[in-house]
């Protein structure tokens, strides 16, 4: 593609470039790329015409939705395309096919579809329909937006009133990573950068335990969704509050998963579990920014001996988190992302993934707590929303990403694993341990 200045719509912000480096790493591992997915399980066939109209309206309001990702010199940009990509797809289950199998196959194909990132549409909406089950499956390329952004996009599609839809994207603040970085003078940025580097250096003194023990090359992403009942969800949240308090719900999920992994594979080599997790820079309930990534990252790490003691583990994670926020280490990742954007994707990816100490993978698993979703169940055009879940690609190793959200008072757990490093039987077992931990029955 021959790019002229007028073709450039937007430069990737440092957090976008961070997700792009991960996209590159996932592709280098032989997988599709850093795609995130968000499924809305619908009660019946929706109003397809209305849905399509809102998708079209949305893509016109936010032109990056139809852009192509291009590299110009060192940096990456969203650029106009000559032919806008198709954003909406329908998949109707043939009458003679089992609906569940058909939809699972389609979803698996969507998340594993390999396509050059320049060609890939930033976001696609797939409507899977059958006699009983209907799903709107949204897949996005991570530099286009983050999970909160997709929640906003779906909320946009679920907003009937046009005047209210116009409020999305306002106020136009630009990338929040840049807003936050703009608060620091250059010497403060460097100070934070060094602080962040030292912090990661300390984490790297312990070798991370990997969830799977396999030498087989990665082939494809699979996933397993587990939904807790309302009573189980209430019990898990009560446990979370008692164990880590109101300020540490995400840490509860992380700690439970560390313990579940340890119970599953107590002999896997390594010294500590280490989980990176992003936190969003948007204000809660804000309708902007919609596109782009607006996040920074933190790590939770716990040595194996501590993970084996439930009480000690949560006290440790809580103390670690409080210290990180007190020392502003949560914001230290911003200048690291800003500096990383000047590296080649390969160098950046290596820096992000590999421990300075052992040279091995730093993350034991990827984690994202999407929280309580704010999309009314009766707001989708022509259909109710029965449930939601997320799926995401992950590098291999670690080959495991755990995502959770709460919708209609039910906690939904999404285990994303790279085959053949992990398999469904292992994940089923992992879930049994995880459930016991969440419910406080894992002593």
């Amino acid at each position, binding site marked *: 593609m021959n790019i002229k200045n007028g073709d450039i719509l937007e430069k990737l912000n440092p957090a976008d470039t961070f997700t792009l480096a991960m996209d590159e790493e996932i592709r280098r591992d032989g997988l599709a790329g850093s795609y995130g997915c968000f499924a809305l399980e619908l009660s019946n066939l929706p109003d397809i015409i209305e849905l399509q109209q809102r998708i079209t309206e949305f893509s016109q309001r936010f032109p990056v939705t139809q852009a192509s990702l291009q590299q110009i010199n060192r940096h990456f940009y969203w650029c106009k395309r000559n032919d806008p990509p198709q954003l909406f797809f329908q998949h109707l289950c043939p009458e003679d096919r089992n609906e569940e199998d058909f939809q699972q196959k389609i979803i698996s194909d969507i998340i594993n579809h390999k396509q050059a990132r320049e060609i890939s549409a930033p976001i696609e909406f797939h409507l899977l329909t059958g006699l009983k089950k209907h799903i709107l499956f949204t897949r996005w390329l991570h530099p286009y937006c983050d999970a909160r952004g997709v929640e906003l996009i779906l909320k946009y599609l679920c907003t009937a009133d046009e005047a209210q839809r116009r409020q999305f994207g306002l106020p136009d603040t630009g990338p929040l990573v840049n807003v936050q970085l703009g608060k620091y003078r250059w010497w403060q940025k460097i100070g934070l950068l060094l602080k962040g580097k030292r912090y990661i250096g300390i984490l790297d003194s312990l070798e991370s335990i990997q969830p799977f023990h396999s030498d087989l090359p990665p082939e494809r992403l699979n996933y397993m969704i587990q939904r807790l009942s309302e009573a189980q969800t209430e019990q898990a949240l009560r446990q979370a*509050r008692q164990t880590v*308090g*109101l*300020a*540490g*719900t*995400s840490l509860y999920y992380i700690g439970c998963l560390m313990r579940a992994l340890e119970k599953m594979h107590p002999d896997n080599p390594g010294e500590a579990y280490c989980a990176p997790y992003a*936190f969003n820079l*948007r*204000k*809660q*309930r*804000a*309708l902007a920014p919609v596109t782009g990534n607006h996040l920074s990252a933190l790590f939770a790490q716990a040595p194996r001996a501590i993970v084996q003691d439930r009480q000690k583990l949560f006290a440790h994670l*809580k103390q670690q*988190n*409080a210290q990180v*926020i*007190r020392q502003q280490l949560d914001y230290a990742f911003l200048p690291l992302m800003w500096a990383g954007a000047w590296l080649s994707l390969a160098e950046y990816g290596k820096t992000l993934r590999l421990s300075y100490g052992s040279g091995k993978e730093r993350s034991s698993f990827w984690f994202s707590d999407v*929280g309580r979703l*704010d999309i009314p169940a009766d707001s989708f055009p022509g259909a109710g929303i029965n449930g939601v879940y997320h799926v995401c690609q992950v590098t291999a190793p670690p080959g495991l990403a755990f995502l959770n959200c709460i919708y209609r008072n039910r906690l939904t757990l999404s285990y994303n694993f790279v085959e053949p490093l992990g398999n469904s039987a292992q994940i089923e077992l992992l879930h049994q341990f995880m459930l016991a931990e969440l419910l406080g029955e894992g002593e």
Partner: protein
Amino acid sequence: MKKKLRNFIFQELVFVAEPEQFSDDDNLLEAGLDSMGIMRLIMFIENEYGVTLPDTEIEPDNVQSFNALEQWILRHQNG
């Protein structure tokens, strides 16, 4: 005190379309204050008011509104 808390929460943590309409008794948790936000808020309070808020007291009754937050801080300032 409440003015500073309002500025911090509405500028950094929670989006409210009309902050002036949000009363000191309105529910901050329902408005979207989440666990990460609470953590940041506590760090802000500890730096700003020189108090230490015990982990064991981080519960809805103490953080659910501006009035509740003020009472919580005052209890520790006076204690």
